[in-house]
């Protein structure tokens, strides 16, 4: 049984604390971890990562064993390498699942504060609006980046470890895939936190994120079909997330080029950050 002082001890030092944005993000991260989504998504993402690592190892194994190498030549298309294969490290079902995870996490991050009316109390502390939206955006972007980073780095590390810088993975892979992972994470984070600020409950926040992501994907596909111009696909953040690894790895056959990708990404980042800022101003904080 702890023994407490009869009343509170002298005033503590208020200058030793962490930055408010870090405090907010750390507290939100603990709440996210409590949501217990980790088991399902952790399993799925681990399987996906092992599958990619398996590709790298099979390529190495093929080179080491002549008999198996001949057998596996037949499976060459399966073990495709080059730009497309590198870009696919961050593509396919991985990004679709990641959008879903970010919607579940980020959709509730701002909306939960709105529902519980916590934001006015946050601003009654020495917290600036920038601290608040940076914490929300930062955490929503950190989660997908933390998941994408191993996909960008571990296969490359395995390849380098097995065969050096001339193995199946390019020496420059991290320089291409890590920026791609960062852009994807920022794109997902800005869309999710901005959409969450529009909602009044966490469930509505998840619906907003999925609605915006899937809605813009459908709309951009429709416009692309009608107007027959690939640049319309850059309206969709999901399409942009799939495009960036291809662009940075130099893969052929992308939906559109650098121009629409840059404009579309910048527009989404700026627009959703502005939405987040506008919806979480202190003047919105009715005491």
């Amino acid at each position, binding site marked *: 049984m702890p023994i407490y002082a009869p009343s*509170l001890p002298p005033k503590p030092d208020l200058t030793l604390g962490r930055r408010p944005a870090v405090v907010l993000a750390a507290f939100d991260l603990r709440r996210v971890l409590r949501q217990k989504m980790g088991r399902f998504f952790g399993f799925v993402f681990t399987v996906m990562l092992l599958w990619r690592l398996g590709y790298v190892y099979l390529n190495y194994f093929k080179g080491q064993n002549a008999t198996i190498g001949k057998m596996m030549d037949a499976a060459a298309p399966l073990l495709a390498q080059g730009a497309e294969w590198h870009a696919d490290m961050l593509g396919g079902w991985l990004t679709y699942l990641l959008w879903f995870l970010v919607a579940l996490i980020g959709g509730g991050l701002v909306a939960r504060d709105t529902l519980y009316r916590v934001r006015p109390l946050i601003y009654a502390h*020495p917290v600036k609006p920038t601290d608040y939206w940076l914490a929300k955006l930062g955490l929503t972007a950190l989660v997908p980046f933390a998941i994408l980073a191993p996909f960008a780095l571990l296969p490359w590390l395995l390849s380098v470890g097995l065969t050096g810088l001339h193995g199946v993975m390019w020496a420059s892979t991290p320089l291409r895939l890590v920026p791609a992972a960062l852009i994807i994470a920022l794109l997902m984070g800005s869309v999710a936190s901005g959409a969450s600020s529009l909602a009044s409950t966490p469930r509505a926040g998840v619906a907003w994120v999925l609605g915006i992501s899937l809605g813009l994907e459908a709309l951009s596909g429709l416009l692309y079909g009608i107007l027959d111009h690939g640049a319309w696909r850059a309206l969709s953040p999901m399409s942009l997330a799939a495009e960036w690894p291809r662009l940075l790895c130099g893969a052929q056959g992308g939906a559109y080029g650098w121009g629409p990708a840059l404009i579309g990404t910048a527009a989404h980042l700026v627009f959703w950050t502005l939405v987040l800022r506008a919806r979480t101003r202190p003047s919105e904080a009715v*005491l």
Partner: protein
Amino acid sequence: MIAFENLEVRYPGAAAPALKGLSLALEEGIVGLLGPNGAGKSTLLKTLLGLLEPAGGSGTVLGVALGSPAAARLRGRIGYMPEYDALIEDATAYEQVAFWGELSGLAPEAARDRAHEVLYFVGLDEARYRAVSGYSTGMRQRVKLAQALVHSPELVFLDEPTNGLDPDGRRRMLDLVLKVHAELGTGVILASHLLGDVERVADQLVIMDQGRITASGSMAGLRKALSRRVELRFLDPLDEAQAAGLAELGELFEARNGTYDLELKEADPLAPFRWAQARGAVLVQATPRHDRLDEVLLRALHPEKA
């Protein structure tokens, strides 16, 4: 503790200012802030917290000028207990009080220690590891008070702290408010519409209406200044001429068995005795009727009706 001069606050786009030329100086102690909805109490609290910049006038809170760059840091020296719930439902009382402590500038370890101490102080020692979603209204109010105190503020704003509490819970909360000032030496500004609460704990009172301060001062002084009601008891009932002459003293409210309840024109306690001497009546007792706080409030807000 707090002083402002001609303070004017205007919301963007609003035609009229929300606070109109407020001037006031508040001393250390427990201040009761009274007023109807829309009186400007919340706007005043927002301004004092540094969330709204004054459009005119000047003021200081704990020695820091309102609207100055240091005003944001000032919030670390102030605790705020909001009127509404504002609790993080999926967190325990301990987690969230530690979180609010960290947000006020405490180091993580210090915030955790203080959370334990302050929750013990407000009487939530056993329940602090439970999620607040399962708390009763009284426990929730105490968590809100704990988060306002976790960083040992010099000044704490309590907005309707007894909202939704039963009589026993109300009494306990008001005891805590008194304890906060007496044991921690923290200045308290208590905004409430429950006059009995303010009457019990406050030693200074500010009454607001339509963005203005209509009355302010110490509770005792305010009552004295506003109270001119006396009960006069004469040895024999007054005759008709004498009773009619009471109008010279003030407005007669009630006459019963030689006792006359009236409001004096002037707050001069000797005036009834001089009047009785001049009229040949024997005044045996003149008792000032200490107004209840609701009468004080009514006078300040609607002098014509009172």
